[in-house]
Every structure is written in C-alpha cells, then in structure tokens.
C-alpha cells in the first residue's frame, strides 16, 4: 500500500528527530569515552544538549549580512538533505525517509553542499580566520573525497546500481554478503576517508580550537552556533547510517542500526586517541597517497 505524502513527511520528521537525538548522545558519549582514555571523568553525556540550549538562549546576536545567516541554514540543509535520502532502517516504513527519491550521487552532493554553503557564509563574516579555516577545510575535504568517491564507484560497479536501498538489499543474508567481506579494499579506503569526514584526530585541525581559532565558525555565535551544533549531530548520524548501508549490510531494526553505527563511530575514538593531529598539507598528502591507491585498487577489483 502506498503511503500518503503527508504521512511520509510525518515519518521523516520522526526519523529526523530520532537521528538528531541519537547523534547528540553519540557525540556526548564519545567525548566521555575519550575522557576515560585520558584518565579524566569527562563531560556529562547530555552536555551537547545543554550547549545547544545555552547557545539558543543567548540574548543578543550579530550578523554580517544575508549570506552570513544563510551559511548555517545551508549547512543544516546539507545535513538534513544527506539524511533524508538514506534509508536509516532497511524495510522499515518509518525510517526509510525519502530514499526512493534520490540515489547515492545526490547524497554525495549533499555531503559537499553544506560545506560550500558554510564557505560562503563564513567568508562574509569578514574574519580572516574564518576564510583561512574554510579554505583549509575545503582542501582537506577535497582530498578525502577522492578515496571516498573511488570507494563509492567500486560499490556502484559491484552492485550495478546507485540506489542505496538496492545496495542494502544486495547485502542481506549474513556477514559474507556485506561489502566489508566482498570488497574489503573499498571499505578500507572509505573508512580512512571517514576519519577525515568526521574531523576527529588526526584530521581535526580544521575545527581545532588551538589552531586558526576554531576554523570556519569563528564568527558564528548564539542561535547560529546552535544550528551548527544541531547540524553536527544530524550530519554525524547521516554519515554513519550511509556507511552502515554501503559497507556493513545496513540494518533491519533500530537496535542493529544503533549497534552498528556506534561501532563505526568508535573507529574515530580508536584512531583519534592513538594519533596526534596532522597539519593540513600532511593530511592532503596522506589522503592522496595510500588511501587513493587502495581506492583505485578496489575499483579495479570490482571491475574485473
């Protein structure tokens, strides 16, 4: 039975609400786990919520022009757009979002879209650090997009489709059908790109507070910052769900989804706690080196 469009929008909003809260709790719990690794107590798990309420409750806010306001809006649209075209739970009516309306290329576009919008907005902030931060962010992003795109091409060749739901469907029936088992090289390339995408150590220099102060959002404050913080949770959740769908067999219920995405995100903590930060030029050279070669190899293997 075909669901009405209003019902589907309602379902998508519920799904968005769930992924926002999940993303926030995930950021909070990972900060807590990192703190434990460093021998600290760490911030409460719900700290991201308090930070967002605090930012929204600021009494005044300043603007630097229309594009400055649109920057976070674009960023949020990028996050929500990425999530809306990925099925969060395979076979679920509630969590399938609008995955039948868009494919992998659209999702990849949305991943880049937010950053571009942010670049326009942050540059209008007029602060030199924003502009430098954005240029560094975009260069690093362009670099990690290469192995990620190669890995996506390998997956598309392997399953002969760009439809995410079809890719998940092809991986059903046990671990040996997952991409991680059938094309491990593509997964390795994609996971290395994932480290860059989630901006954790060793690729955290773009938004590192000790560097060019906090990078692109230098001038963003109050409710605009609240929007960026909310988007971070949504975007994290969307990326994790995308990775789970493409490489780890998707999920048929919400518990599997939570377990798998938590474990994928945990890779960041493992790597981030063990390696120091790369400079931008180092990280670009890194991404264009071995990970790109692994990506090319995965495409060749998928093609022959």
């Amino acid at each position: 039975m075909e669901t009405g469009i209003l019902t589907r929008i309602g379902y998508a909003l519920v799904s968005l609400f769930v992924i926002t809260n999940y993303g926030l709790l995930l950021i909070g719990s990972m900060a807590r786990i990192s703190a434990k690794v460093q021998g600290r107590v760490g911030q409460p798990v719900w700290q991201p919520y308090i930070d967002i309420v605090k930012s929204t409750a600021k009494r005044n806010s300043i603007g630097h022009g229309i594009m400055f306001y649109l920057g976070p809006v674009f960023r949020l649209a990028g996050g929500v757009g990425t999530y809306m075209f990925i099925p969060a739970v395979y076979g679920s009516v509630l969590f399938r979002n609008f995955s039948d309306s868009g494919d992998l290329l659209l999702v990849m576009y949305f991943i880049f879209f937010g950053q571009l919008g942010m670049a326009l907005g942050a540059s209008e902030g007029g602060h030199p650090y924003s502009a430098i931060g954005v240029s560094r962010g975009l260069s690093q992003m362009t670099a990690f997009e290469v192995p990620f795109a190669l890995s996506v091409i390998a997956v598309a060749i392997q399953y002969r489709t760009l439809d995410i739901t079809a890719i998940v469907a092809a991986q059903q029936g046990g671990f040996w059908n997952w991409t991680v088992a059938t094309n491990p090289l593509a997964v390795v390339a994609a996971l290395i790109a994932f480290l860059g995408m989630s901006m954790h150590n060793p690729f955290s220099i773009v938004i590192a507070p000790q560097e060019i102060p906090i990078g692109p959002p230098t001038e963003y404050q109050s409710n605009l910052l609240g929007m960026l913080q909310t988007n971070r949770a949504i975007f994290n959740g969307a990326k994790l769900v995308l990775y789970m769908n493409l490489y780890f067999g998707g999920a048929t219920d919400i518990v599997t989804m939570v377990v798998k995405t938590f474990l994928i995100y945990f890779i960041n903590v493992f790597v981030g706690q063990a390696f120091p930060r790369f400079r931008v030029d180092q990280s670009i050279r890194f991404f264009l080196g071995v990970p790109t070669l692994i990506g090319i190899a995965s495409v060749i293997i998928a093609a022959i």
Partner: protein
Amino acid sequence: MSDKKGKPVPLANEGLPAGERGLFCDAPPREYAPAAKIVEDFWNWARSQSLWILGFGTGCGAIELRPLMTSRYDMYRFGIQPRPTPRQSSVFVIGGYASVKTLKRIVRSYEQMMGPKFVVALGSCTINGGMYWDSYNTIKRIDQYIPVDVYIAGCMPRPEALLAGFQELKRIIRAGKAEGQNEYARNFEWYKANQKRVIKDWNMPDYNW
C-alpha cells in the same frame, strides 16, 4: 565615578572613515530584559552548566587556567571548556594584573562577547592592584572598567580555587544575579569614561560588537 548621570555623548565611531563604518556597531549597547521567570530559570541553569571560557590569558594568572584542562582537575566534568573566540564564549577570565595595553584588548574582547556574559577576575591584582599597586602601567580595580561577577583572591590562586570560583559563578547565574551585560549597558558612559581615563591612545571604536 560621579559622571554616571552625564548626558549621552555621541559614539566616537562617528569619526571613522566611511569605508569602516559598516565594520563596527554605531549604537551603544542596550539592556535586555530577562524572559518569563520559568523560562529564564531554565536558561540560567543551561548557562551555568555550559560555561565557555574565552581563552585569552591577560596576565600571569592565566597559567593557572591550563591545569584545569588536564586530567588532574578536569574542568570538562563541570561543563566548563575553553573557547578560542569571544563570539562563542560566555565567561571572561581576567588572569591577574591588567596592563593598560592589555585593558584595551580586554575591553574589545568583552564587548565582542554575546550576552549574557560573565567575568571572573583572578588574583589580588584585579581586586586592588596586588603587588603592582603602585605600578605606572597597570590598572588596580578591574571592575571600574568592565563589570565583574566573581573575584578569586590569591597570588596566585590555585586551580582548586578557580574551580571553587566557577562553582560560585554557577550559583550566581542560577540565582539570576549575573547581569553584567545589562549593568555594562546601563552604566556605559561611566565605564567608557573610566576606560578613556587610563587608555591614552584611544584608537578604536567606542563600542564594537
């Protein structure tokens, strides 16, 4: 200190060249009324649980801020974290003595912070000048130049004292008494007069947010 009732003077921003006028605010700060009690109480709770420190070490006392981030003192568990830009931070920690040159930067940074903003003054030097009481280029009482919420006495106060000070700040915020932003706006001319009395080379806008 008696010129609180002086009539409004035009902001010195008017002297700026036309090309730079757009870069700075040309209106004095205004007071913001708190929201309804129950909402404001909730917001104050959130503000007290998420204190973002402006990472600007203004004096030797800033050295005591660093240990707070380490595993031994771990300020993150109280919801306190450093923030590199004044736009996003809510707490300004004056780290000890403030020279006149630094006061300029303190004033500019303070004005760029978004309200509600809180100031924690650290060490004896911020209270009465401390060991620099007769120095020609340091100021003696920081609260004549920007409103202060909490003083932490000592030379130097240890990180534990700082944590205790932050707990006190949280109590003040939750009680709704940390209205430094409004106080600054209400007594703007008095604060400006005091600032201009010590800062002789006033080559910046009167108010910049």
